[in-house]
């Protein structure tokens, strides 16, 4: 097994390469572009036998990806943020086609205001689409998850597209040592895509994605898609088992970090969870019984995994790098809903929104969130949601506003 320093984007490109993707419809967008540039270079150098086509938009890119998967080839694509939303109509559409392929999303905050830096509102927007989603925290995980994602997507019980998510900048441009699996081992884990009879061939005409008349058919197919997505948890666990056997690295639908006998927990997704791990280590050293739950699989929602892991936990700090405007953090809302079905004593949830637009989360903030969760548990009452934001930051924005106003005054004069 070879080890190599790779960025998150580089690891994503390696995932597509090792999966032997046949077709890569592409469109550049920061911070994703390195993925398609890397693949394009390999193809031009003859190292990779695939066809990369740059479309004129993400809407077209996702259409082409779905259409090619519906014809029976293995497809890889990648996007980010505004691009993901530009293609949103087709995200829903191709999931309904039951076209299995892997789309990497490099998370980046959404306009407005326009930014290049990461948060999770882009990926959350695809939550209800029929795409499955798996969130990564390290470069190694990006590569490994892409291989697993193909196996899950193409499984006949599932047959749905999968988004593999990584954070822009923090993971996309961070170099970490990555073990690059041997091709023969990957081939053993991931056999060629077998589309069955769902494909276009002259000898066997098919109509795909036809319209329906009447709600009976519509409801039927929508619910079928939901049931298929729900199958993906078991299929994920099977794939993870096979993966561990071949490659020696194991991934759970929900990563549990130092959750043994934990009374408190952080719940968060993505690369910032590595910061939470560091905080957990320090808090544990200070005598706290605290751990981290990091859902990797977010669609289908790993409710059973979460409830099981939270048995015995008294207080939870849920950290959302997104805002459902007018509601609050999405992870918090979903976890609260899941806990409604929990027997016995339920943990009290404290909701935090942070890391928006790439804003860092400091160790002190993790300690503070742990304290808030602890107090909430002791009181038996959930505190109001909080935005992670400091007075210094507010002063900085006030300063910029003052400059903007001074400029306006200047113009008026």
């Amino acid at each position, binding site marked *: 097994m070879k080890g190599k320093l790779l960025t998150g984007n580089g690891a994503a490109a390696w995932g597509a390469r090792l999966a032997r993707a046949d077709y890569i419809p592409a469109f550049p967008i920061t911070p994703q572009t390195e993925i398609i540039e890397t693949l394009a270079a390999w193809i031009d150098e003859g190292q990779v036998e695939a066809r990369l086509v740059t479309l*004129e938009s993400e809407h077209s890119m996702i259409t082409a990806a779905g259409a090619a998967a519906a014809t029976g080839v293995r497809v890889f694509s990648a996007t980010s943020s505004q691009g993901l939303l530009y293609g949103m109509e087709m995200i829903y559409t191709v999931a309904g086609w039951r076209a299995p392929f892997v789309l990497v999303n490099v998370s980046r905050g959404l306009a407005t205001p326009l930014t290049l830096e990461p948060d999770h509102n882009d990926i959350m927007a695809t939550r209800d689409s029929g795409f499955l989603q798996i969130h990564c925290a390290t470069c190694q995980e990006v590569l490994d998850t892409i291989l697993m994602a193909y196996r899950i997507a193409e499984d006949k019980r599932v047959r749905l597209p999968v988004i593999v998510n990584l954070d822009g900048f923090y993971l996309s441009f961070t170099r970490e040592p990555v073990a690059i699996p041997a091709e023969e081992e990957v081939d053993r884990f991931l056999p060629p895509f077998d589309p069955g009879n769902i494909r276009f061939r002259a000898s066997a005409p098919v109509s795909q994605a036809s319209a329906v008349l009447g709600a009976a058919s519509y409801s039927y197919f929508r619910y079928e898609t939901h049931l298929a997505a729900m199958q993906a948890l078991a299929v994920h666990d099977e794939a993870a088992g096979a993966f561990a056997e071949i490659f020696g690295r194991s991934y759970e639908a929900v990563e549990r970090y130092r959750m043994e006998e934990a009374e408190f927990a952080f719940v968060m997704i993505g690369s910032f969870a590595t910061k939470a791990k560091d905080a957990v280590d320090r808090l544990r050293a200070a005598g706290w019984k605290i751990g981290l739950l990091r859902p990797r699989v977010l669609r289908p929602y790993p409710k059973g995994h979460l409830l099981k892991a939270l048995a015995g936990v008294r207080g939870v700090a849920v950290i959302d790098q997104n805002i459902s405007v007018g509601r609050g953090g999405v992870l918090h809302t979903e976890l609260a809903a899941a806990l409604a079905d929990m027997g016995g004593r339920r943990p009290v949830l404290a909701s935090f929104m942070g890391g928006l637009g790439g804003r860092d989360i400091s160790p002190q903030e993790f300690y503070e969130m742990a304290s808030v969760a602890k107090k909430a548990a002791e009181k038996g009452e959930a505190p109001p949601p909080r935005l992670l934001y400091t007075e210094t930051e507010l002063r900085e924005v006030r300063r910029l506003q003052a400059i903007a106003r001074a400029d306006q005054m200047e113009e008026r004069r």
Partner: protein
Amino acid sequence: MSETAFKRMKDLPSAHLLGTGTAMCPGCGGLQGFQGIYDLLGEKSVVVNAAGCMTLLSIYPFTPFRGSWLYTAMASAPAGAQGVRDALDILMEKKKMPPEENLDVVVLTGDGAAYGMGLSATSGAIERGLDFLYVCYDNEGYGNTGQQYSGATPHGARTATSKGPEGYRGQKKDLFSIWAAHSPSYVATVIGAEPLDLARKVEKARKLAGPRFLILLAPCPPGWDFDPKESVEIGQLAVRTGVWPLKEYVNGEIVHTKVPYSRLPVEEYLKRQGRFHHLFSPKRNDEVLNEVQARVDAYWQGVKEKSPVH
């Protein structure tokens, strides 16, 4: 067109390949024209469709197509064609599919997608040299939603969103020229009411590779407001008045395939359709009528000056 297999009407296929009993309206000029096109395309084809009237051809679990079908969305049928074409090519290159399983990739959309929402995807497909045939049935408005004006609506036409005394104030977009400006393999205008001209153009398009385009003017009884039985006659009038020039672009040259030497006045075409009724009644609107006639005259004058007539 000396090498054509279609010299006279009896050379055309005697039965249609497209099944009957579809949801299209009686007298649909789009369906009439597309039947002629599909007869020659044959069943070794995959039709990639965008939102429009003809989306209702294939309604689960029925289809009139002998070949394959993929519905995409309104804006991106050419991108769907790109994905299918690329996938078929990859499968053949990697010897995962024998060449006899190959399919012709055909995009089928209305004017709403072709002239407007899908134009970016279309332009992209042409610039990439995609090997596909694009068929646009052009009924000059968003027909499936009740005929609101689109980029294809002619000047003066009343639509559900241009009901004022002057009708639609814009001009019909010249999509033929927009395509031709991309230097594709083939562009042609066709109409169901001229089946021989149509068949020859489909025949020619099929022999070529790369991006090919047929714009099919589709007389639309509900949208244009006329009796379904007059559909063919109105189509013929569109040609004989010079409103719908039958032409083709190939190898950088534009050739008119059926020149109306004794052009009828455009009025003969306009007055047969309810959508232009307000130009004649209660008061004749000479200003708009003359403007429409002048544009048609200027077009044919330009043709006369620019190119030898075949």
